């Protein structure tokens, strides 16, 4: 795989593929108006543009509204446990480096319960694309504050607001060693499709932080549509410059903030030939 910065959006020409070919026969049931619908569509369009064979894609998720994604796609999918999607995906990529490994989840799943996995997935910089559908709330459990919820947002659980500074996923990804960091918006289907295409083509850990309004529990997020705008600077490969862009952004800029050619962790140890025998031996030694 080549870096998008070197050969932009290189296509594998086989035959025309329609985005709907990547859909399963399970139809999405997110709330009408939810940004996740448009993210699903953008993802299938990116996969179709890249003409990736369905059997060469592994999509792993955790728990939450966004984590329903594997059910809706006709690719290999794993709906894992809460916050552990990146750990599962890392194992998958280590054993099947030939697969295009995608991970989908939300802000609660990825940045709270899965926060530790997020940091170390960035640090390892394995060739994985992490799609975070960030609606700044736990939607599936009816609207509790998540790590990206603004400190002043009031709810029954937090009548005075959380009073806690928001998690900055892009800043943390940069500090932890991710090599592709972008922000997208579900209400910008064209721009989002391009970001996804570039993230999938990037060699290394790609984070796409997608602002995706929760119209049911955070209806005020519909106003994001008016505030979001395209980033007016080119992606930087300089962490200091990228940090400046990330920290000076008000959260409404979309585009690639950072893209660099960093060492990718690719375990060279092949799986043992008889794993069952090896496991039995270990169990015997441990008297299990």
């Amino acid at each position, binding site marked *: 795989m080549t870096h998008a910065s070197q050969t932009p959006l290189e296509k594998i020409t086989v035959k025309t593929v329609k985005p709907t070919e990547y859909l399963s026969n399970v139809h999405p049931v997110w*709330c009408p108006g939810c940004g996740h*619908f448009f993210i699903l569509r953008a993802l299938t369009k*990116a996969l179709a543009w890249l003409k990736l064979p369905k059997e060469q894609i592994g999509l792993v998720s955790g728990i939450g509204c966004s984590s329903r994604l594997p059910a809706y796609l006709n690719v290999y999918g794993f709906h894992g446990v809460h916050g552990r999607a990146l750990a599962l995906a890392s194992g998958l990529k280590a054993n099947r480096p030939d697969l295009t490994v995608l991970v989908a989840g939300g802000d609660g799943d990825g940045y709270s319960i899965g926060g530790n996995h997020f940091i170390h997935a960035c640090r390892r910089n394995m060739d994985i694309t992490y799609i975070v559908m960030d609606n700044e709330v736990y939607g599936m459990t009816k609207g509790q504050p998540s790590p990206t919820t603004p400190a002043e947002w009031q709810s029954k*659980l937090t009548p005075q607001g959380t009073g806690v500074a928001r998690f900055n996923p892009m800043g943390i990804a940069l500090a932890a060693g991710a090599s592709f960091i972008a922000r997208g918006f579900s209400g910008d289907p*064209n721009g989002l499709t391009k970001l996804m295409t570039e993230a999938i083509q990037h060699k290394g850990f790609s984070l796409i932080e997608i602002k995706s309004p929760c119209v049911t*529990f955070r209806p005020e997020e519909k106003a994001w*549509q008016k505030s979001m705008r395209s980033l007016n600077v080119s992606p930087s490969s300089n962490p200091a410059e990228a940090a400046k862009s990330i920290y000076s952004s008000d959260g409404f800029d979309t585009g690639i903030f950072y893209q660099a050619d960093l060492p990718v962790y690719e375990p060279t140890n092949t799986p043992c030939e008889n794993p069952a025998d090896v496991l039995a031996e270990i169990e015997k030694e441990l008297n299990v």
Partner: protein
Amino acid sequence: MNAMNTTSNAHPHLKKTHQNMAWVLAAINEMIEESIYHCETFCHTLHTHHNLIAAKVFEQFCPQFLSEQALIQDSIKTISLPEIPPWEIPYHDYIHPVNALTHAHYLMSESDAWKLMHEMVQVHSCFYSYLLDKNQQPEIESLLKALRKLNMECQKICRQHQSYNDALPDDLDPPISQS
């Protein structure tokens, strides 16, 4: 219609090949496919959320988009359409058809659903008008005129229904008020 600001001069995904017949057909086809896909998807999810009234609007309207698609497919015949990168936008003020759907809600009324449909139909209308303004070849011009005629009928249907039924459906699973 509120939309993300994608109209700056520096927009990275602007395409200006509106004089190329195959591109015009492909771009229209792409827009209609988007509308059909989302119409069907929203119809399903509204059913799931027990809003049968709004779901029926999407279900009823889908054949209108299919009629537009049929006109296009008649014109395509043996023309090999180019693959348009899915991030390209055809002109500066283009608003994606799904933009209207970001205002949807599981409890929307029948009237609200017709308003959304109207907004989607207007996106088609704007694109056809834009292309007609660009002095197309005769065969494309007649197609665009036919599409615009059909589209105007769709707009009429939407307008007629917009004040039809403003009653909100019962909320069978109300969210707990959080603020």
